[in-house]
């Protein structure tokens, strides 16, 4: 009995603390500054750890400064230069060198596969999962690491799981309740409140520190918000600062419950799996949504898949054919405190969330950008590329023309034909037969 009473007391104090220090401030959008203090301590500890490592490790083993340095230094000269096309040249036996070198470069390291593994860190952040290249340094460092493990798994994890649980339940209950009300401004205001509070709670559940820049460009009603995709948490990060209408497939299970509850309070656009295949239907519904100026802006991730936040891949043109104003948003995570990238082939959703909740924190920057619309004479693909460049520049990411779906599908033959065309022009087109 004693044990049960004690456990009960601990649980109730725990819950009151959580309520007082986290839930109530979230509801009012106020911050108590606890996470800032936590972050400061964290930064100091990591700096100390980095200095220890740099002292202890001989020079060659330390990785270079550029975090996404590759295994090889690539020779990016175009085909003409690589084949010494300064004069109109004929076929030479050594032409095969150029193609085989390019081929071997691709085998050693290709741009696409690289983007689907987590970014390598320059210095260790005391998480085993990022510890690829570091060796044993000193006892003190190991002790700090052990302390870190204890803190993360025994203190932070239960707290975060509790918060997540509370957050999701509040969301479901809140939206269902609000859904009972008749349509009107009260309903909208309440639904916004519920959404924002629950999102803030969930962000605290991940110890998220988010910096929003250029809030004056926040997406307005009747527009489309477009962002680069790194993980499912992107949605959480954006909705903490404003309400959006989401677009997606209807799922089963817990996600399905959340989806159904959310749609009661404000109109999101959920599609059945069969409807997703019909592009016209999808475009029609989205057009209807944005035509209604009172409805919330739609949130779309045009890459279609999660990329590892070092680059932006091809934007699918479908979202840019709908019309309306596009509000681009760039999201950049700081990998020092926790890697937010979801490698869906490596981790399923549950283990991903677990990894998130046992990282130090999720720190990211969100830049809102001025709205863009399609110009005269510009087709959807060009417009998509323009928006993509803008986002890449703002977020400090590199730009790649490849399709993120390449990680699953084979590449088209048109690219190969292009190379063959270039080469043929060189050896035949110059009339030097």
């Amino acid at each position: 009995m004693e044990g049960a009473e004690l456990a009960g007391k601990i649980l109730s104090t725990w819950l009151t603390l959580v309520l007082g220090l986290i839930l109530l401030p979230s509801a009012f959008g106020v911050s108590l500054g606890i996470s800032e203090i936590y972050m400061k301590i964290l930064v100091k500890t990591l700096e100390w750890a980095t200095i220890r490592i740099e002292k202890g490790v001989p020079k060659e083993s330390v990785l270079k400064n550029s975090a996404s340095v590759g295994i090889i230094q690539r020779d990016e000269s175009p085909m003409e230069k690589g084949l010494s096309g300064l004069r109109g040249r004929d076929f030479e036996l050594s032409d095969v060198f150029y193609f085989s070198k390019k081929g071997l470069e691709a085998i050693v390291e290709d741009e696409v596969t690289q983007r689907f593994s987590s970014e390598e860190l320059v210095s260790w952040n005391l998480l085993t999962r990022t510890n690829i290249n570091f060796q044993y340094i000193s006892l003190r460092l190991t002790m700090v690491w052990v302390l870190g493990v204890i803190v993360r798994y025994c203190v932070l994890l239960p707290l975060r799981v509790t918060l997540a649980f509370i957050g999701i339940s509040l969301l479901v209950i809140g939206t269902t309740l609000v859904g009972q009300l008749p349509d009107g401004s009260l309903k909208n205001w309440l639904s916004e409140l519920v959404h924002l509070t629950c999102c803030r709670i969930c962000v605290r559940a991940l110890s998220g520190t988010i910096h929003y820049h250029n809030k004056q460009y926040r997406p307005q009603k009747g527009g489309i918000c477009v962002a680069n995709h790194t993980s499912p948490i992107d949605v959480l990060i954006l909705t903490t600062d404003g309400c959006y209408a989401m677009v997606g497939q209807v799922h089963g299970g817990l996600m399905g419950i959340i989806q159904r509850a959310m749609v009661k309070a404000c109109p999101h656009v959920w599609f059945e799996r069969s409807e997703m295949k019909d592009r016209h239907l999808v475009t029609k519904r989205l057009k209807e949504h944005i035509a209604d100026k009172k409805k919330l802006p739609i949130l779309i991730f045009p890459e279609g898949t999660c990329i590892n936040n070092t680059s932006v891949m091809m934007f699918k043109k479908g979202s840019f054919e709908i019309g309306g104003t596009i509000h681009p948003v760039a999201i950049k995570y700081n990998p020092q405190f926790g890697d937010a990238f979801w490698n869906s082939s490596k981790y399923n959703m549950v283990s991903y969330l677990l990894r998130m909740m046992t990282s130090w924190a999720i720190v990211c920057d969100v830049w809102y950008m001025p709205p863009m619309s399609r110009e005269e004479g510009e087709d959807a693909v060009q417009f998509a590329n323009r928006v993509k460049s803008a986002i890449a520049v703002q977020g400090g990411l590199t730009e790649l023309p490849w399709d993120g779906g390449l990680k699953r599908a084979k590449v088209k033959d048109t690219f190969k034909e292009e190379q063959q065309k270039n080469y043929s022009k060189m050896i035949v087109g110059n009339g030097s037969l």
Partner: protein
Amino acid sequence: MGSRGSHAARIPDADSIRRETGFSQASLLRLYHRFRALDRNKKGYLSRMDLQQIGALAVNPLGDRIIDSFFPDGNLRVDFPGFVRVLAHFRPVDDDDSSMRDPKEPEPLNSRMNKLRFAFQLYDLDRDGKISRHEMLQVLRLMVGVQVTEEQLESIADRTVQEADEDGDGAVSFLEFTKEMLWCPACIFSLGCAGVVCSQHMGVNCTEGFHLCFQ
């Protein structure tokens, strides 16, 4: 567990591979990770299909020939040592090789001769030691696709074989092939690789350019 991150122990036969290929420890480790990343089903070896799934390789006109070089003698699998052995051909030439090397030791994989052998076997489809006119045509066809007519291609192949063929047997042997390659007028000053390649030729007629700068 622990902060022990040195994974060289996980690479089987790391020392002998290093001696054979000349890769540094760090490069070997990264290549091992690359091997594991390409081996999607965690089989421990790579099959043709694993390499074919690399996008940039699939669009390379010589992609299939390059993949073939990893699977000599009809093998269907390539393990990590085999993988690294092929890549070792592309290490930059060690400049001190000819004079100071111990003649009893086998030639390093990245020597000029071995690089040329690698290039030769890209052409020599049936591995008989000679590039016939037919084989030349096939490789040319791979590189140009459907952009060039059969007649044009045949005349290019004929011209190339005639220029290279010294003993008149209608095919290009390895020796004749090397004579075509090693002559590089701008390359009298042999430059080692410090990211610098023969600035005039950038890879043509010059094995200096036939390397990747592993860092």
